[in-house]
């Protein structure tokens, strides 16, 4: 379903992704793990047409996302690392906006919106503006939205960041259910190793832009002689802490937070 061969992405002198290759099979849950700044989000952006690769090839369901953008875009749904909802619109309007952009026929659109909002337990709140939602509700809404156009592949970029254990559990329950019932291929990243251990069929570990290991959780543990996936992860990537520079986005979010007086 996803094929990546010798993918490279360079920003000037800095090489974020160095010659990585991997495959994700149809119906698989594939976890892409790595420390901060390892190249996870860059890879997802290339897979989802937001960035063009410097070299190498990518195929999504046989399509090249850097050439056949729009065909490739119909194939996947994505939940971004940071929120991407319109806070001023209601939950229903966010869903409807998405459905229209993806050309889901009206009748089907209304049905899917209703069933997805019910599945993610947001139907009762459908007419409330998203700015009144908690972090967990927003995440659920984003996942529901990403599934609206019945994609074959779903990208989840750290979907559980900042959520409480209850919400996290529930979220992965939904993801597993979708994967089993609708055979949706899932490509996910997370910092919570036990989540990857529990949910993913296969795991790739990326560090400094390179894939350092891939296989099932069991294989990774055996390879490193570790008892838990977390230990395996640490022995593969070392225990130095990676600091990322704050981007202008972070600075701006901080500023906005100050202005809003932590209303969220």
């Amino acid at each position, binding site marked *: 379903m996803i094929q990546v061969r010798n993918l490279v992405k360079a920003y000037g002198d800095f090489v974020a992704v160095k010659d990585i290759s991997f495959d994700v099979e149809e119906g698989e849950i594939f976890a892409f793990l790595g420390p901060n700044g390892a190249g996870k989000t860059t890879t997802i952006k290339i897979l989802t047409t937001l960035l063009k690769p410097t070299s190498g090839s990518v195929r999504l369901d046989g399509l090249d996302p850097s050439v056949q953008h*729009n065909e490739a875009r119909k194939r996947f749904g994505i939940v971004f690392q940071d929120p*991407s*909802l319109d806070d001023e619109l209601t939950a229903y309007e966010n869903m409807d906006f998405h459905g229209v952009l993806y050309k889901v026929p009206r009748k089907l659109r209304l049905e899917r919106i209703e069933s997805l909002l019910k599945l993610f337990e947001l139907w009762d709140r459908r007419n409330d503006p998203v700015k009144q939602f908690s972090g967990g509700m927003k995440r659920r809404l984003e996942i529901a939205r990403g599934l609206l156009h019945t994609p074959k592949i779903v990208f989840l970029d750290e979907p559980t960041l900042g959520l409480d254990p209850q919400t996290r559990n529930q979220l992965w329950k939904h993801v597993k259910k979708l994967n089993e019932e609708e055979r949706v291929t899932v490509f996910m990243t997370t910092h919570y190793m036990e989540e990857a251990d529990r949910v993913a069929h296969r795991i790739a570990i990326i560090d400094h832009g390179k894939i350092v290991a891939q296989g099932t959780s069991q294989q990774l543990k055996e390879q490193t002689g570790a008892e838990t996936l977390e230990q395996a992860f640490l022995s593969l990537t070392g225990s130095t802490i990676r600091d990322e520079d704050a981007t202008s*986005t972070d600075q701006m979010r901080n500023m906005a937070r100050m202005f809003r007086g932590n209303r969220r």
Partner: protein
Amino acid sequence: MSAIYILWLRQVKRYVRSKPRIIASLGQPLLFLIALGFGFGPIFQKAGQGNYIQFLAPGVIAMTILFTAIFSGIELIWDRQFGFLKETLVAPVPRILVMIGRTLGGATVAMIQGVIVVAICFAAGFRVTNFHALPVAILIMILVAIMFTALGTAIASVLSDFQGFQLIMNFLVMPIFFLSGALFPLTNLPKVLNVIASIDPLSYGVDGLRSALIGVAHFGIPLDLLVLSVIAAALLGAGSYLFSRIQL
């Protein structure tokens, strides 16, 4: 088409829901009308130029459209910072349609603001003398709205945050307004100012509105319409190009 419609609808909904924004953005035109309109009125009259409110109102209307349109375009920076832009960029919709939908939405918002200010001007004593030219006045308002929304979008496509925003306001938007003939007649000006005013696209919007509404012309409506259409088309093209190159 449906993509353009839903993007347009989103902009309009956001506008209609933000009541504080609507009220706040009417403060400035009101201030201009009161302070300048009534303040300079007697001097303008003594200089033999007639009623200043009559002269100023088209300028204030054009100003409102200018500011609202630029802000609507620049809202793109918010969408980029708060993530919503990604949602539209990964959708299977050609970027140019996204750009057109946004621009039409922003232009519609600017038009609504413009019409509200027309009503305020009317309350301040402004009277339309050429009712048959009203459609022309509306056309000019639409062109000005589209032109500056496209400009705002073009600027926002290359800025990644609000750092450069103050620079744009002080060195682009303010000069466009103050040097456009919105506040003073363009006749008998020092040569430099005259040249600047004639390359300022807003001058043609103000002149067009003034000709259509009260029959006072400097460039004349045919030239106004020509310049506005050409520049609006050029800025739409430039905006679409820059927007299509956004990488996140």
